[in-house]
């Protein structure tokens, strides 16, 4: 793969988890990313599987779908260039929460959890920049929980 680090860095700036990092922090992470192409119809990751990396779309389009406990599959989103999935896996060690299928020929940048966390250890300011995003996630979950309880 020959995708420019600058392109990956530009797309990383659109990832909610990474958008508060400084350009130099994002550049360091972009240098640690690898790229991979997927043919149309390929299952890129599968719900329940081992989660090792954040995927950021450099080109193409994917469908994100979730299997319910009853066994039916529901499409929850479609994302294109600049979209991403698996971002929480950079912090939490949990299996993939959804299946992602390439709707067309798609290229992704992959950032491994280990490399991200190594950067975190070396530059704790990255962790500080992540806190507002994580807080927002907690608030959103609390609201969902409250809504479910009242409904």
């Amino acid at each position, binding site marked *: 793969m020959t995708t420019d680090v600058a392109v990956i860095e530009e797309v990383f700036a659109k990832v909610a988890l990474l958008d508060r990092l400084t350009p130099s922090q994002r550049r360091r992470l972009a240098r640690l990313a690898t790229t991979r192409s997927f043919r149309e119809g*390929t299952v890129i990751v599968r719900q329940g599987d081992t989660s090792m990396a954040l995927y950021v779309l450099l080109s193409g389009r994917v469908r994100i779908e979730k299997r319910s406990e009853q066994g039916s599959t529901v499409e929850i989103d479609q994302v294109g260039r600049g979209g991403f999935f698996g971002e929480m896996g950079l912090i939490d060690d949990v299996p993939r929460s959804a299946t992602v299928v390439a709707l067309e020929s798609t290229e992704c940048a992959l950032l491994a959890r*280990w490399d991200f966390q190594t950067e975190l250890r070396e530059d704790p300011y990255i962790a500080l920049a992540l806190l507002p995003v994580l807080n927002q996630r907690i608030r959103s979950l609390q609201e969902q929980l409250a809504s479910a309880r009242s409904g």
Partner: protein
Amino acid sequence: MRSRGERSTLQALLRRWLKFSAADEFDDATWDPRFAQERKLLELLERNADSEYGREHGFDRIRSIEDYRASVPPNTYETLEPYILRMCKGQSGVLTSDVALMFATTSGTTGSAKYIPVTPSYLEEYSHGVHVHTYRIFTDFPDLLEGKLLVPTSNDVEGRTEAGLPYGAISGYLTRTQPRPIKRFYALPYELCKVKDVEAKYYLTLRYALPEDIRLIVMPNPSSMTLLADKLTAYAEPLIHDIRTGSVDRAYLPEGTPASLGRGFAPEPRRADELASILRSSGKLLPSEVWPNLRLLSCWKGGTMPLYLRKLPDAYGDLPVRDLGYMASEGRGATPLVNSGAGGVLNVTSHFFEFVPEEQRDRDDKEFLTADELESNREYFVYFTTSAGLYRYDINDVVRVVDFYRNTPVIQFVRKGQGMTSITGEKLTESQVTGALLDAVETGRFDVRHFTACVEWDEPPYYALYTEVGESMTSDLCRELATAVDRALSARNIEYEAKRDSQRLGAPVLKRVAPGTYDALRQKRVAEGAPEAQVKIPQLSTNMEFGKDLEVLEVVRAG
């Protein structure tokens, strides 16, 4: 007893050694798996160029992966067996240039055991994967070595070949040869692997582990972890008594037990009181309560294991469970770096691997791929090349690519190849089932029309024997048939016998199906589009729901 200072110095040294001896090399190699794999292959071929197999296949002229494929055909155990049998007889320089230290035994596809040569360089390759795994676990759980590790192992000397070389389990060998300072981190002594009696083995395991601050438990099969938890409650009273008095109940020291296992315990009344208090308050001893600092469980999570994994929280709470990695006596395929799922990163610095897309396995023009050529979510058969003298060796395993770590695939064991089941590691083949059935039928006592064995889930799981029989077959005869098949399977497959003896596999259950059932099954396949001449209802089904829609008239258990 070591001081806290000595212990932490030792921990720091161990971490640094694991990092610099294995983990860093592995980590660097994952950026460019093709380069790492070709380098590994050429290093391995150069070392074995002077072996008989190396000379026959021109190892000294091989300069690339393409050269290797042109010079060496894919192998199975059967194609390498003539060489291995000569190594068992003590001949050197046959498959490898270095000598075999022992043979790792595993169940073979044709009935007799397989013997995998364990050479010094193979041990190095094998240990490399262990060290990467251990380093990552210690990094993620930094206080593990503040307590002890509970890692039962198997006997490395089950017997000896004609030449006097031992055969048995690699795990026992690695435990026996650990440096003394490292042994102190483990709760169990090496000698425990010599205990054959299952009840005694579990009792002694708990006798050694209960007084300790256990932080990590490693057992390949999660069903063994559940069994360990069950035995903890079953033996609670005698264990507490023994801990209080510094003794070992003689009932659990059967004849032949190494003498050292009954000695050296000091009375620990305070620990006995703690355990007695837990037993009084909850009516049982749970691992999560007796070892409150337990941080992690490590066991197989792929293949059929999720059936057992569901049971672990009952005894162990919500502890993280990390896969043990895709591995066998023949080699270590992958190392998990996280707890989620059952995938591990391909061990690109341990052995050389090739992959064949699952659907191409039986084709003459099948495509062999290297690590860098694998695609996400596809299933592949794996071929190992290792310093054990296994060259392009078809291990008959199917793996799936579940993710990528940098440029290296993350793979997960899915199942054994066609015609084989292995719910507890028994690796039962259709030919073994057919052979066992024939052994029974040839006695002339049983009128069997159709027969299919398949694993069914229970505690423990068992083989269901779906059988269409003649009218002369009474219930007693059906029971006799199930018992005869059980015995014949034990005779044909050492792993099956071991799993039955250790209660990890239950006695088989014969399920008598209605007359005409198999004809109906055949017709259904034809209706689904299968050519009639090619329809074959297997005698060993890998589908655990094989019998779901069949009309069962009677159920009898062997024994």
